[in-house]
């Protein structure tokens, strides 16, 4: 079945150590703690690739640098890099990222997801699809796609 894979031999990178977030000394425990880049990366790094038993972090589909966040404006932009230019699973990966963020960020957040410029043959079309919320809503009502997403987001995978 190996020949059916879109990227049969992906490069696998080491996972980075989990950093503990350093809290300032004068902690006001009642103050709202802003959501930062690392927190969002932690939400996304362990998502499983749709066709490999590796995480998006291990395949460098997602890196911490690819996440822009502005907590004051409640805005996140995630830029991911498919492992191959013609990856037909790019939309599926994007959908996993969006669902994960929908589930773990406060609802006030606005999320834009895109593939890294130059990383995909049909970049504009993938980006448009991933940011059309009507298409995303319809996709998540499809049992096959929802199963795929749930599998990639399964917490048992680490």
């Amino acid at each position, binding site marked *: 079945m190996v020949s059916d894979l879109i990227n049969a031999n992906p490069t696998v990178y080491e996972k980075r150590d989990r950093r503990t977030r350093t809290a300032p000394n004068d902690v006001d425990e009642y103050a709202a703690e802003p959501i930062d880049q690392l927190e969002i990366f932690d939400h996304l790094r362990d998502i499983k690739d749709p066709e490999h038993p590796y995480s998006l972090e291990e395949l460098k589909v997602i890196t911490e640098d690819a996440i822009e966040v502005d907590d004051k404006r409640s805005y996140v932009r995630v830029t991911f890099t498919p492992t191959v230019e013609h990856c037909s699973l790019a939309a599926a990966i994007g959908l996993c990222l969006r669902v994960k963020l929908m589930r773990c960020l406060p609802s006030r957040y606005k999320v834009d997801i895109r593939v890294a410029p130059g990383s995909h043959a049909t970049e504009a079309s993938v980006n448009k699809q991933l940011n059309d919320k*009507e298409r995303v809503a319809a996709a998540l009502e499809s049992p096959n796609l929802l199963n795929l997403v749930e599998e990639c987001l399964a917490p048992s995978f680490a």
Partner: protein
Amino acid sequence: MSLEGESFELREIQRLEGHTDRVWSVAWKPSTGVDGVPAVLASCSGDKTVRIWEKSPSTGSFQCKAVLDETHTRTVRSCAWSPSGKNIATASFDATTAIWENVGDEYECVSTLEGHENEVKSVSWNASGSLLATCGRDKSVWIWEVLPGNEFECVSVLQGHTQDVKMVQWHPHVDILFSCSYDNSIKVWLEDGDDDWHCVQTLTEANNGHTSTVWALSFNASGDKMVTCSDDLSLKIWGVDVMNTKSGEGYAPWKHICSISGYHDRTIFSVDWSSEGIIATGAADDAIRLFVENKDNLVDEPMYKLLLKKDKAHEMDVNSVQWSPEGDKLLASASDDGTIKIWELVSV
């Protein structure tokens, strides 16, 4: 309503709760809210239901009078009342369009229109209620003839859009159909007198049109202007010589009049032109904006100006805005936050 030299605000009258998922669309029942008839509003949602809300004459507040459920098996994306208000049509991601008949407080599903391959996204009745149009992800636009006995016959399947069709809307006075799409275009469809419908005009970037998904369109009261809204963060105003269109002597093309840009910073999902001339928009930045024609007519001034912006109108995206049949007094809005809000435009 005179808008000169006054300032206005949108005052929240009521928040309607009941849907358990995002609310996609709202539709006021025609001829309600006037002449002592209580205002009636329909809403549809990702929770697969349609809710009917009625204003109580005694308390003045809206109450849910009916829940139309157990018919659609997926998201109900849009709903539209027939001009008489006797029927309501609902378009669903389950690939069907349901027709409901209203008797007293009851709504009964009397017909289900099948044919689209997958998600139906919009439904619209023509001015006389004799024709219905639907559109969807299968890139097609269907025209249905309304026959006696709740029968609906498909008279045309229109191909032409290259991507999913987001909305269909009949012209308010003549049987011309408009559709807008993920392919960035607006198409105009006309019958040639031989029961054959075809595309007579496509408004694209080449006609000063939109550069991304066109989500919705709305007409002014006289029907000689149309406004469209888009993912490209702009509104476009289009105009036509309406007299020519009415006479039936050939087709009068629609022309770009102006673009309203620089006001929105996320996708504009909904636009509605009130009978009094106020354009309302609902957008992904949670805000509602109102625009009016700039009557000053000074050179270098924009043709439309922002009347007001209601920030944080909802806690999430605003998917639909609709003026009540009363004119520009009441506005309904629907949101991803699962609520519908009723707003009153008041001068301050």
